[in-house]
């Protein structure tokens, strides 16, 4: 009985298909949780919407691009100040959101004029910016505004600007994952190949599916620089709009997050024949393996070994200090999807941590295949976990730390369980060698926080005893 019906799910028995407990001896391939399926209404799931999958996760990372959201104000307001992807040009991407601020009359009479005006205003107000993404949202999709036509019109009138349109309203698909797909496919079909890059190295690649969370991209870039590899486009961490138009010229596509960006890598292979190489950037062993694979592709193995050696010399001792102190700690991972499989084995190998429960918001079948393959026995693998399930799972596996978002972090805090920000990190970057030491440090600090012990104390507890003693 590796599929689990939790107590709290008695009223929604279909949830049994989404929760898997890996058991020794059984063939886990028979028991893949159902994933990428519609959420049961009213379950307090953790999922976001397709729009945010496109805007917030991928498009909004770009450092030189206006993100015009065609809809009521909330879609803009809500996808602002929620992410931690800095840029090397002052974080333009995190400072602004743009909205057409749709009102009832535009719903009734159509919002294309308003969109056109908003686009022009935005370019006028920010004259240094020449690139834009335009997104539909639920109501503008429902009323059928033709945002492509508007974008085209503006581009004709303003030859110095370029606009990409993304039509994935919040109700599309079952989760943010749909937005990743729409944006990937749209971009490859409409924008890749429309600009030629300057080639400065014999070795060129795109780095795909890394969003520069707390500087991940910038840290890894120091490796590529040392290896002499030119990254033509970062999809999309610290990236620019025009770099992404040049993706067709790379010799290799290196993919970190296959879930958000595998589509474009596949298309680049299909349309341009560029090979796809998947690596893991989190964890010492994985990172070293990734560097080796890339260097092998380019035939620069010795450079890779030198880099790895230098990095190990610098960071391995620190990692081991933490490993010694984290050995045997139990961790839960409740994040989007791929990080489950990126992390479960790397924290086990590099830090001696046991991952006891994982919940994915928007992982697909291939993600669960990977994570179950890499994960341990006795661990719960959950698709689209909800709040009551989280409580029950915590009771079952008693994790010492949970990698999840800040809100859920606040929730589990009440249960005296510390969290580490599994989306935006506590104090990153977490990728690469240095980054994984950061992850280890944050985990150590979370687990060894003296407040947890204090929180568990009821200061009234020993009163009876004390009164007795006092009376003696």
């Amino acid at each position: 009985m590796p599929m689990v019906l939790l107590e709290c799910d008695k009223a929604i028995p279909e949830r049994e298909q989404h929760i898997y407990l890996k058991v020794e001896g059984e063939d886990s391939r028979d028991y893949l949780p159902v994933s990428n399926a519609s959420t049961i209404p009213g379950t307090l799931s953790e999922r976001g919407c397709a729009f945010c999958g496109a805007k917030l996760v991928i498009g909004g990372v770009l450092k030189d691009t206006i993100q015009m959201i065609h809809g009521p104000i909330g879609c803009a307001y809500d996808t602002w100040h929620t992410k931690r992807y800095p840029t090397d040009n002052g974080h333009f991407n995190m400072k602004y959101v743009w909205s057409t601020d749709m009102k009832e009359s535009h719903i009734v009479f159509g919002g294309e004029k308003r969109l056109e005006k908003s686009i022009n205003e935005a370019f006028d107000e920010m004259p240094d910016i020449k690139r834009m993404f335009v997104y539909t949202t639920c109501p503008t999709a429902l009323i059928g505004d033709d945002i492509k036509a508007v974008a085209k019109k503006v581009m004709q009138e303003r030859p110095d600007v370029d606009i990409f349109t993304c039509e994935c309203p919040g109700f599309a698909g079952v989760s943010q994952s749909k937005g990743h797909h729409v944006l990937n496919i749209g971009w490859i079909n409409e924008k890749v190949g429309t600009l030629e890059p300057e080639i400065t190295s014999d070795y060129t690649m795109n780095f795909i599916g890394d969003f520069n969370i707390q500087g991940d991209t910038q840290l890894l870039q120091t490796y590529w620089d040392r290896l002499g590899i030119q990254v033509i486009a970062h999809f999309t961490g610290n990236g620019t709009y025009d770099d992404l138009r040049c993706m067709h010229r790379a010799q290799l596509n290196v993919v970190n997050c296959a879930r958000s960006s595998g589509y474009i890598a596949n298309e680049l292979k299909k349309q341009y024949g560029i090979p796809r190489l998947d690596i893991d950037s989190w964890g010492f062993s994985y990172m070293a393996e990734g560097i080796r694979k890339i260097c092998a592709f380019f035939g620069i193995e010795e450079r890779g070994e030198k880099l790895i050696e230098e990095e190990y010399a610098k960071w391995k001792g620190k990692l081991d200090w933490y490993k010694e102190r984290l050995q045997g700690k139990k961790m839960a991972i409740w994040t989007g999807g791929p990080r489950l499989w990126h992390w479960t084995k790397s924290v086990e190998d590099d830090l001696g941590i046991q991952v006891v429960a994982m919940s994915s918001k928007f992982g697909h079948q291939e993600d669960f295949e990977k994570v179950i393959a890499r994960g341990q026995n006795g661990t719960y693998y959950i698709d689209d976990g909800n709040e009551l399930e989280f409580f029950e799972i915590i009771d079952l596996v008693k994790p010492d730390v949970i990698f999840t978002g800040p809100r859920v972090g606040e929730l589990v805090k009440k249960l005296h369980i510390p969290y580490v920000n599994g989306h935006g990190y506590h104090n990153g970057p977490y990728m690469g060698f240095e980054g994984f030491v950061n992850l280890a440090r944050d985990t150590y600090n979370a687990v060894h926080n003296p407040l947890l012990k204090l929180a568990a104390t009821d200061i009234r507890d020993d009163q009876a005893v004390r009164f007795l003693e006092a009376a003696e």
Partner: protein
Amino acid sequence: MGCEITTRERAGVINPMYDCQPAGAQYAGIGMKDCIPLVHGGQGCTMFVRLLFAQHFKENFDVASTSLHEDSAVFGGHKRIQDGVLTLVRRYPDLRIIQVITTCSTEVIGDDIEGNIRYAEEQIAKEFPGRKVYVVPVHTPSFKNSQVGGYSECVLSTWKTIAKEKVAPTGKLNIFPGWVNPGDVQLLKHYAKEMGVDASIFLDTQDFDSPMLPDKSIHTHGRTTVEDIRASTGALGSLSLARYEAASTVDFLKKEFDVPGHTVSSPYGIANTDAMLRKISEITGKPIPLSLVEERGVAIDALQDLAHMFFANKRVAIFGHPDLVIGLAEFCIEVELEPALLLLGDDNTRYKKDPRIVALKERVNWDMEVVCNADLWELERRIKDDPKKYDLILGHSKGRYVAIDANIPMARVGFPTFDRAGLYRHPTMGYRGAMLLAEQIANAMFTHMEYVRDREWILNTW
């Protein structure tokens, strides 16, 4: 010299000041006990609003979604409402209130909210005989109004659904503060206690600042119960502290149940707090005690140390909820700060005629602008045009980068204030709130003086 009232001229918004209506409705929903709001729309409409609350309060709040998908866009979301309500009722045995909050998409689709609620209620009655769950229809299309109106709408709808009959006189006073912080709620309770007034704070959000307890119990939700709401019809009066967030429910209680309705200016600053206490005294017949005279005196004493030495002639830009912005402008004038720009962030046309705005307009003898339907770009652009235009910014954290990039001291106030620790815990209303805000303003200015090495030595002795 003088005050100009304008409206944003651009069609688009760059950096909005308010979230949309459903967000405000959700904020109202979490203020009640044994209640989980159910947002009928895309999942993002819930997920990010819950995150927003967590950013501000560093707490998790429960809000559910009907998880609208394409099929609902085509065939309607009836089933998802019904399933959502029933799933909640089934899995949360203590649940007593569910607000069904509409969004842009479901209003465009035109789902029959009331009909589906009736159906769900029938199901509940069948499945859980004897259990009463109030399912409240809350119509908050995102393309109307803003979080401000959404909050007001959800409170009103909940009252309409639960407060169905006039109860016997309770001797209590209903106080509707509007969208405020737990620190404000505690302050109002403290004032009521000092005056010997039995007050119900609607909504009682004190536990939005909730503890880690040894028994691991979770209390992060409003304290306002179904019983409190029902009892409000027997109160000796209702007092609204926020014209745009609270007055509608006060009016409802007056019209439907003859509960005398009163409105005072939001109690920001000394004079507004005076007026509130006097009004409470008038309604209840309870005198204002010496303890509050002393508390007031401590606040004035603290303000007096700062006003003409540090605050005078400082030009202030203020943005946030309309009742807060207006109240803060009034407070500013009390302490010699010059409100120079007020930004009100939605298309409510009543602001221009607000008597408080009119009074401000008549009163100021310096350059002042009130921009309606404003976004934060209105602020940023003015500063880009004239970097010395403002000496201080008062507003919520969504405007933080304006202050950071322009190097202008900013005191965080309102909602959300996610880039400073603990602010929600302290009042802004009342004497104490005025004092704490002044301290925060002064300390922001002082820190600024140090970082930019501008007469920081003056703080050696003042």
